[in-house]
């Protein structure tokens, strides 16, 4: 687990309200929600958005969450035995397994490249989607999803956990969170959205590795949403990191 030695652990003192100290030995559960103070200098703008959200958001979400609450995250590494690394993640009803195989020699048919290659492959189980047998192929490492959507960010986060479990050196754990007007949407919520935004972020390096956006957005909203996502990403990353540490400690004992 080189990664743990390399990447500094960033804890944002006291700001992250999770309930996860009661972690079991190899599994972590916790909810994490972005703090209101994220992006300090833009606090006022953010407050404005919050007020705006509060005005709009006077109905409960289908799963009884508040508008800035992420779904409960359950994480576990070493989910499959054959792979060099693997992880299982459960965010609410979305369940993902990621396995990492390799490193191995690249296929002859591929073009020569002087850098490594990460082949990703996503498959949905036939019972994962409301319509049976509806298969969607995305991108990423052998992933098996089940039950609900809202899943690309979870797949990304879970994949980086699996990569860490495989002992692959990384710049940082990449975590990903999506938002429409509400954070961490479920599939039902996704169907009625006006727009969505997904951020993948490496908190230690403060770098955004992927950003996608649909729907019509004003400048201020984009800034706010990106900061909200970045903050949630940092917290999710802390949860991942803590879980990895715990498992590593357990293994070395």
């Amino acid at each position, binding site marked *: 687990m080189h990664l743990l030695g390399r990447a500094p652990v960033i804890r944002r003192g006291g700001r992250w309200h999770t309930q996860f100290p009661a972690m079991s030995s190899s599994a972590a559960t916790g909810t994490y929600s972005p703090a209101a103070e994220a992006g300090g200098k833009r606090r006022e703008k953010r407050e404005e958005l919050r007020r705006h959200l509060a005005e709009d958001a006077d109905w409960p979400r289908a799963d009884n969450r508040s508008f800035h609450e992420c779904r409960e995250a359950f994480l576990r590494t070493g989910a499959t035995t054959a792979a060099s690394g693997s992880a299982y993640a459960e965010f609410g009803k979305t369940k993902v397994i990621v396995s990492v195989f390799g490193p191995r020699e690249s296929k002859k048919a591929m073009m020569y490249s002087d850098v490594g290659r990460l082949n990703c492959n996503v498959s949905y189980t036939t019972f994962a989607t409301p319509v049976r047998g509806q298969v969607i192929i995305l991108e990423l490492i052998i992933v098996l999803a089940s039950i609900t959507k809202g899943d690309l960010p979870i797949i990304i986060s879970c994949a980086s956990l699996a990569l860490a479990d495989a002992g692959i050196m990384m710049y940082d754990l990449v975590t990903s969170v999506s938002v429409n007007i509400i954070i961490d949407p479920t599939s039902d919520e996704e*169907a009625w959205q006006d727009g969505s935004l997904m951020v993948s972020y490496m908190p230690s390096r403060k770098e955004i590795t992927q950003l996608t956006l649909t729907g*019509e957005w004003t400048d201020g909203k984009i800034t706010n949403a990106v900061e909200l996502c970045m903050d949630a990403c940092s917290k999710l990353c802390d949860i991942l990191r803590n879980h990895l540490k715990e498992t590593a400690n357990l293994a070395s004992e």
Partner: protein
Amino acid sequence: MVGLSEGEKHFIRGGIAQDIRTDGRKRLQFRALSVETGVIPQANGSARVRLGGTEVIASVKAELGKPSILHPDKGKVNIFVDCSPTAEPTFEGRGSEELSAELSVALQRCLLGGKSGAGAAIDLSSLIVVDGKVCWDLYIDGLVISSDGNLLDALAAAIKVALSDTGIPKVTVSVSTASDEPEVDVSDEEFLQFDTSSVPVIITLTKVGRQYIVDATSEEESQMSSAVSVSVNRHGHVCGLTKRGGAGLDPTVIFDMISVAKHVSQQFITLLDSEIAAAQAEE
């Protein structure tokens, strides 16, 4: 793929740093744009757009279909992109699949808006003929004929032009009392035009070194660390965004890129509009 020597790479990067690129352009300057409409007579609307050495065709076909159960008051729009082997020999066979899929997804993300239809290029409720029964399905196909970088911007521009060229046949609906299904009579003389003023353009900012440039050639693209494509409509609202390339970006850089893209987009929209008007006057 572009094969460049170390010297050439250095020359390209150095030029961009000094705001004079290898073809004499500034960082935020587009290549010469030329637009032609009605290039495919079988389609309802079509356009050919040339942006320097990049050449693309977009066509719009309209077919009568059934609206989905989830959105009975809306029509459907499909966007597909294909890369012709004339653009690059490696596109032969299945070689272009990955690039085509990437371009299609990026265009769908930038032009179709949110799931509820907010920020979409085309007002989907304008495609409905009979609520829950009959609607227009639009098939937008993009074809890359010649590739010299900045395919996404060229394709989006071509789609905008093709939509402004599109005529949807006028339909008359007669409901017979005997059956539930309405009878639809498609006119082949009268056509309705689209309102394309809300169709966004895509501006791709390619980051080379510490600077970013618009309308990169494929040589410049080979030197990029990452690229951000922003789709902006006439009101200056961002309607979609995608990032390409492996390198991560600092959040402040992304925000800066978005505001630059918004600024550039307004000039590009004006330019494109005047080209559309000129192309339609020629016909």
